[in-house]
């Protein structure tokens, strides 16, 4: 496995979300208050360009660097999990002001206390693994 390419992508991600202020609790607060176009512009631009990219990949059967066909795995079409899980995620996103990628970025910026956010998110993930069979999907 060529490791450096993934680290490079991660560095790009870190710069992008830090320099565009998407890592900021206050920007997330602003977004959920619908008081600025900024976050919608970021997500909107990436989704519109992402749709074009995915369509081109599918139409021209673009191959990966390893020469295999690029497959984008479809998501399961059962909906309660997306509504309920999405809602719970949204509660945490607004409360903490960070989603998983910004958490890693701000850890690197020196906010070491976020290691506890990471530990807590792992605990939440583990709790989901335990509860998975007992909650509606």
């Amino acid at each position: 496995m060529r490791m450096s390419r993934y680290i490079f992508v991660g560095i790009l991600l870190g710069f992008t979300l830090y320099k565009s202020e998407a890592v900021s609790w206050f920007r997330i607060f602003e977004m959920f208050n619908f008081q600025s176009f900024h976050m919608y512009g970021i997500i909107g631009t990436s989704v519109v360009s992402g749709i074009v990219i995915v369509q081109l990949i599918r139409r021209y059967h673009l191959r990966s660097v390893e020469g295999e066909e690029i497959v984008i795995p479809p998501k399961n079409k059962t909906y309660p999990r997306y509504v309920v899980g999405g809602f719970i995620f949204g509660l945490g996103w607004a409360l903490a002001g960070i989603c998983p990628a910004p958490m890693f970025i701000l850890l690197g910026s020196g906010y070491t206390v976020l290691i506890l956010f990471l530990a807590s998110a792992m605990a939440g993930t583990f709790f989901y693994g335990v509860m998975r069979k007992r909650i509606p999907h």
Partner: protein
Amino acid sequence: MVPDWLVQLRDFISQPWPWWVAGLMIALIMFLLLWFGKNFGMSENFRVMCAADGADEMNEFFKINWRDQEWNLLVALGAVFGGYLASHYFAAPDGAVAHVSAATVESLRALGLQFESDQVPLVPEWYSWEALFSLQGLLMIIGGGFLVGFGARYAGGCTSGHAISGLSALELPSLVSVIGFFLGGMTMTYLIFPLIFK
């Protein structure tokens, strides 16, 4: 002596990035990962870390070959590096400030958070070890983390997996998830924040 153009390049990168630059960069990142034969999804790392820490022996949800997911941990590690570099060597000229709107400064005031306009920090003061001794800080760091970790796996993805990768692939489940993210986020912002901050 550092050449002038390098200094200029650094200053250029150091400005706050407009939304469209960030949006295009995120699309590029998604494309690069697809091109490498992978999929952009950061919250999967929580599951991988659980598995690597031994959860695979406790629960079948974590019985994954986490070494196949090592690449994703490397992306996370790169994000840590990127955060370090961007904040230490490419700081914005006016400091670590979030350039939020005047309306947002007003809404923050209504919650009892006083900031001058143009002085709203990028990172709130409660991202600190001291803040863990307050109920607010504890809720935000520990409670927020748990909800994010649980919700992301329940919904099968987070902002990167659903809002970026999923919507780009025109996945209806991802649209439903993103609507769920916003309903949850608005509930927190409008109904629960007034209780936490007052």
